[in-house]
């Protein structure tokens, strides 16, 4: 299985400590800027149906806007209840102003 990188967003469009919801094919992804480093995890909370990119960035955690469960932005690991199922995480690279997200193909 190989990883194919897709252009997801302009880096300059994502302010530090905020997220952006992007869709690549069937993948709904939350893309975050943590102090200039970019990370991509599954965009939909595994507990509810909320978009994680609409939540609150608290340090290295994203708090779901619906029920306040949290996930690690760097890994997608579910940290706080009611979230118990991890979201996937995706490799990210930056080329110029473009943020690219890797999807297994």
């Amino acid at each position: 299985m190989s990883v194919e990188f897709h252009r997801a967003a302009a880096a300059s469009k994502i302010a530090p400590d905020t997220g952006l919801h992007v869709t690549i094919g069937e993948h709904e992804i939350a893309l975050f800027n943590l102090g200039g480093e970019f990370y991509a995890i599954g965009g939909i909370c595994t507990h509810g149906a909320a978009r994680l990119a609409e939540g609150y960035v608290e340090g290295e955690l994203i708090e779901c806007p619906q029920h306040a469960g949290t996930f690690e932005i760097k890994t997608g690991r579910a940290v706080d209840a009611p979230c118990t199922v991890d979201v996937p995480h995706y490799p990210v690279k930056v080329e110029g102003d473009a943020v690219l997200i890797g999807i297994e193909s």
Partner: protein
Amino acid sequence: MRRKNRFDTFKEAPNRGSYDDFPMLELGIDPQLHLSRNTVAQPFFLICEQDTVLAQLSGEARIEFRNSSVNYFNLALGDYVYIPGGTPHRILPKTESIQLRYKAEHPGLEAVAWYDDSGAEIERVTWDCADELPQEAYLRACTARDIDVSPFRWAEVAKEIRETEAAERARPPKDGVPPPKTPRRRNATAIAPASDEKPPLKNNVYLFARVATSSLNPLFPYTEPGAIVPCTTLQDPSDRGEMGYFIHSNTVHEVNVSFGARDSYQIPGGCAVGPFTHGVGQKAGQENSKMINLAVITQRQAVDEPQHEAFALTCAQCGEVLFRREYDAHAFPDVLDDEVDAHIIGLPTITQSAVTSAVFNADEHNRTCGKCGHVNSPFPAAYWGWDEYRRRTYLISLTRRIMRDAANAPAHA
């Protein structure tokens, strides 16, 4: 403090004082929640141009009215009071009272007033909330009347509100969330008096939820555009069985306040506003039968713009949306083949959910996933009670008309 769409009332209340009316939620949330911890009598009557709703989260108090068919209500835990726009009212705590007030995001004109013993108005000070914060106006008006303002922190509170609002506007907008609108100054300079047709009303969450028939029950009969519509909801899957899971979309905010929860994502006194599109219920494999939660979910009906909602059911196996119905949240789906009495119209959110789940359940084709082929079970609509609410709305409307016709029959002429 940073304003968030989630807070613990009992954790925040010790930081608040009498008539702080501090806006707790992010800018742009409508209705906004204002928190106070009242220990002394309100030194004026407050008049809001738009409807507000007061919720008592602890302690006991009294709310007095002027120029109203209602003189006063006593307040205890779980009481909600609907205060129609233009109604002068004043709070008199009997014990320390933690109160939340639901207000329109842009409240327009507000005023404070004083009355003599005969009920005649002595003085009124009116301001436009687009120009002046209520706390600044409280301080200005009370100081001008030589009222002792030492029990109040309005200058500090106003400063804190200005700082939090500036921080909110400086914060990068959340993805998918429109930036908050700037309040527009009103052309009017006086607040119209309240209508006799819409008096203040009180209901108690704990008493009402005992007799409520649905999982979403409006506490008050006011559902017109601009009305604040608090609805009780009681979740207890251990007693009533599987909740199922659906996705609800709304073009107005839903403000959720818990009045008692256990084994739930909510905490007692927890306040939360979710995204416009949000999951409701429990996903397959994530059920928690021990969960109980009594909450009040409140929305403010849209004014001068469409209000749309949608109800969607998803595949329990792969999450694909199977069936989605969009509806006008101002329209009552009168598929019961009879005229609906405008006095007892149902809340469209409930009646539309009833119709949608019935259509979904009636046809296996609607429940078969086009993506993975899984044939989903019917949605457990009985748990939510929407159809019961809709059926009773119709029957109550019908019986009211039968009674009216009987009273007008020739034998009684």
